[in-house]
């Protein structure tokens, strides 16, 4: 990298304290870099976290933006949080979340709500074997799998599933799949397949399974793929499999679900062959113009399959609905496949990992503490308003354009220019509060009385402005704000640069909604007799439900709740002109309240039958009111009791969820892009290599941003960056 000719450190301004910004700060201040970079994080409002911010409300209850589940394949995110906890060295005697393993608990993918022909909703599970070790283990053990490898694994899964069909003994664990018999050289393998094709149909399921074994070997081992042959072979097998299954699935739920997965996998394999993904240098990116379900359909998946609960769940988990419109499920096929393959085939420890407290407490408080120790400065209550570019006329020949200034609104000031202390103690655990500590602010009482909503985009009040200038206040900028905020902050960039215009136009976001319930009985009593679950593909509006009862003792209720439930889903968007009105956020908040109440009144009865009266009404008295936590009879009665729960409409531009729409991914800009030689972007909306709205993408982008500046971490160390 560039030799350091300076005596003093390079000043880095990181705007945005979410996953991406915090990651970049963490990377740039590693001890090995010996203080080359001095980092200041600028954050609006009183807490770090962005979309992952959480707070503590009445009864110290955790109040989140929504449901945050970490996936077992989040190698980068886990590596960093583990390193953070290792550096933090909390004392387990005094702090109940001292080690990362206290913070994260494994959780299995055990729920997709499915409508059974006999008129019931029923969950079903998919079990897949994990990789060795735990996510984030040092040493970057992610193997260099090719698409061929993933397809081979898929075939292995298919063979396993088909094998269970042959032995329809419920409850019996499926046998470990037999490794397919090797047939020697590639030529011999192909010869075998040709001959099998000539001889005609695969008459029995066993023959089909064996044929799939041949495909598996072919995909895993052949360097040059005679695609025509493989496709013909594949088609012959698929026809045979279909024939076998058609008769069986109408009457048998379990088989239907197996078939849906098998059909989907076979379509994916066929598509990979037809679209020559195995040899395309773009890997999965090559099909990013297609919607995932549409692409599967083009490759032979049936209507039933592409409407299966399984696929619906994947779309719901990633809010993949354009403009939040449930009639427009859309996700770029390539990224969709990449995410599904990573999630199912490369996870470690568990498919999901749940947090033992709010995400702010589990992730951002530890990072805050470690970064403070390392000398990072935090400027809260600073909201970026504009990124100011240099005058192009003043550029020297060969000089790239650059950021000249950053213009901030200062939302509140600290007396004497001191530093704001953002954390509060909840029985020994440092946490973020649900509201700022007004006592620390100049004129705090007035701000509180006037109800300044520091995190709201519609709040324009401020106590001052501040302009940072290049060379004086910063040298390099990392723009790590939420993607939805970019059009408001980067007007100059958009005006001058068609790529930024295109990005803002194509990389879209959607608002989301969430609600959290605290109940005074446990799930069994509510009528849910299964294990604690994460359930997706449920009815709208709240298609995702997570049982968070393990948090009951983390909060400070006099009597702990029997059950906690988090619900979330996408929220249908409203035309842009409407969103500009000041009344908009309140209206949306009320909208989500109505959605939640309606949801409780009607839809939840299928899963929680005992939460309802004989007459059919929801038993509102089950909800625990933190202002009257002792008795069922205390507090409001009836529907009004819902007001004591917590819900949110995530409509702030920077809180909107980033979509991966077909055709949009190539408009993203990479953190490695050097068009503006002192500006780096970071966030799950950038081209991070894993272009999906999630913690892992944000962390990867933060690491890429750090690499762009310092050369560390090396690109090869960013797990999953070099990947089909």
């Amino acid at each position, binding site marked *: 990298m560039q030799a350091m000719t300076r005596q003093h450190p390079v000043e880095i301004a990181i705007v945005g304290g979410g996953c991406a910004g915090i990651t970049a700060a963490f990377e740039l201040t590693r001890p090995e870099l010996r203080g080359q970079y001095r980092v200041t994080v600028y954050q609006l409002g009183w807490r770090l976290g962005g979309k992952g911010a959480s707070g503590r409300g009445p009864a110290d209850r955790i109040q989140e933006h929504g449901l945050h589940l970490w996936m077992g394949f989040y190698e980068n995110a886990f590596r960093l949080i583990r390193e953070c906890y290792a550096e933090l060295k909390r004392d387990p005697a005094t702090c109940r979340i001292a080690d990362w393993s206290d913070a994260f608990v494994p959780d299995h993918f055990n729920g997709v709500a499915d409508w059974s022909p006999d008129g019931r909703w029923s969950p079903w599970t998919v079990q897949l074997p994990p990789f060795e070790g735990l996510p984030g283990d040092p040493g970057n053990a992610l193997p260099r799998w090719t698409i061929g490898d993933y397809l081979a694994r898929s075939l292995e899964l298919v063979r396993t599933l088909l094998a269970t069909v042959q032995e329809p003994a419920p409850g019996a664990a499926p046998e470990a799949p037999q490794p397919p018999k090797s047939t020697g050289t590639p030529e011999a393998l192909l010869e075998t397949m040709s001959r099998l094709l000539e001889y005609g149909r695969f008459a029995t399921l066993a023959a089909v399974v064996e044929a799939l074994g041949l495909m598996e070997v072919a995909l895993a081992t052949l360097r040059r793929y005679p695609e*025509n042959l493989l496709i013909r072979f594949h088609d012959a097998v698929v026809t045979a499999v279909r024939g076998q299954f058609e008769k069986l699935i109408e009457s048998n739920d379990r088989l239907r679900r197996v078939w849906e997965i098998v059909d989907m996998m076979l379509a994916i394999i066929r598509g990979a062959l037809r679209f020559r993904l195995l040899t395309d240098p773009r890997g999965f990116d090559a099909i990013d113009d297609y919607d995932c379900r549409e692409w599967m359909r083009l490759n032979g998946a049936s209507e039933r399959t592409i409407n299966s609960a399984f696929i619906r769940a994947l779309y719901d988990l990633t809010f993949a609905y354009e403009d939040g419109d*449930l009639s427009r*499920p859309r996700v770029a096929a390539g990224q969709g496949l990449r995410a599904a393959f990573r999630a199912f085939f490369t996870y470690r420890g568990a498919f999901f990992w749940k947090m033992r407290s709010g995400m702010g407490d589990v992730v951002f408080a530890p990072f805050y503490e470690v970064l403070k120790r390392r000398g990072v400065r935090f400027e809260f209550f600073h909201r970026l308003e504009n990124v100011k570019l240099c005058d192009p006329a003043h550029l020297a020949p060969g000089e790239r354009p650059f950021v000249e200034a950053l213009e901030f609104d200062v939302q509140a000031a600290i007396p004497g220019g001191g530093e704001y202390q953002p954390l509060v103690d909840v029985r020994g655990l440092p946490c973020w509060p649900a509201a700022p500590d007004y006592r620390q602010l100049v004129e705090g009482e007035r701000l509180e009385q006037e109800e300044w909503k520091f995190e709201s985009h519609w709040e324009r009040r401020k106590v001052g402005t501040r302009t940072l200038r290049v060379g004086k206040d910063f040298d390099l900028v990392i723009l790590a704000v939420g993607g939805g905020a970019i059009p408001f902050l980067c007007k100059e960039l958009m005006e001058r640069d068609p790529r930024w215009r*295109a990005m803002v136009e194509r990389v879209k976001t959607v608002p989301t909604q969430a609600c959290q319930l605290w109940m005074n009985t446990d799930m069994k009593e509510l009528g849910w007799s299964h294990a604690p679950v994460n359930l997706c593909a449920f009815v709208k509006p709240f298609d995702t439900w997570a049982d968070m009862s393990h948090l009951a003792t983390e909060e400070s209720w006099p009597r702990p709740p029997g059950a906690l439930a988090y619900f979330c889903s996408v929220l249908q968007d409203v035309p842009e002109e409407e969103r500009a009105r000041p009344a908009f956020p309140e209206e949306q908040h009320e909208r989500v309240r109505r959605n939640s109440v309606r949801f409780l009144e009607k839809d939840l009865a299928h899963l929680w039958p005992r939460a309802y009266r004989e007459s059919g009404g929801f038993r509102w008295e089950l909800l625990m009111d933190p202002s009257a936590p002792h008795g069922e009879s205390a507090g409001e009665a009836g529907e009004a009791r819902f007001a004591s729960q917590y819900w949110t409409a995530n409509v702030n531009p920077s809180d909107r969820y980033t979509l991966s729409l077909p055709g949009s991914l190539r408009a993203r800009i990479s953190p490695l892009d050097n068009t503006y030689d002192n500006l780096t972007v970071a966030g799950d909306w950038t081209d991070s290599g894993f272009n999906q709205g999630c913690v892992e993408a944000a962390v990867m982008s933060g690491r890429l941003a750090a690499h762009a500046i310092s050369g560390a971490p090396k690109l090869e160390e960013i797990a999953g960056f070099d990947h089909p």
Partner: protein
Amino acid sequence: MDPRERVKKPEPGRTQPVRNWGAVFERPGGNSVPQGVEMGYRVIEEYLRQGQNVARAMWAPAVGGTPSGDGLQNQMGAMLRSFADFASLWLDLMGKASAGGATAREPGVTPAAGTAGPFSAGVAPSAAKAPKATASEPTEPPAAPESPEVQAVAPPSHLTLDIDSTRRTEVSIDLRPRASDRAFRVHDLRAPEPASPRIRGVIIEAVPEEDRVTFRIQIPDDQPPGLYSGIILDEHTGLPRGTLCVRVVAR
């Protein structure tokens, strides 16, 4: 700000992930001929798959390109566009000879912009359809989607020609009415030579209930020989439904 002093990020070694280790560029002294074939097929197959969805917009979105402020570019763009527009205009003027005739001939590939439609969520699967049989065409695009509703019906069973002419005349009619058509009209018939006078006053009478159409054409005695043609339009919508050609033979 002195450009020499200002801190800049270093040049990136690469900015894109490596997605396919097998297809990495390095071919030291190796043979790139098969690679050429492979790349070529990939490009043409993808193109065929994406169908004839040719954007009418001037600037391809692939690189986020939009027209620059540079006047020269605009002029160039205008020229290239004018040709395309001119051809469009001409086609509009002439009208298409038969609605859906030419475009229906496009191969049946599904453009990339297609969607699979909303989920049939929360609905009892008694509504679920039987899985579609797949076409086993390995490298061809998938089977043609259903063409847009075919409303054109066969030409009318009864066609009457009432020609008033002292000259030898050949009349060709190409008519594809829609079920909803009630009446037709035709513009003046023109010959390619601008100097030739038009054949005016052609009348088309339609009796849809009897599936009958009558053409009444009157050719003046001094009409120069040539091929005269005009578009037959649906009177109500103005949409083209066919062509009428009259060849006036030289004496």
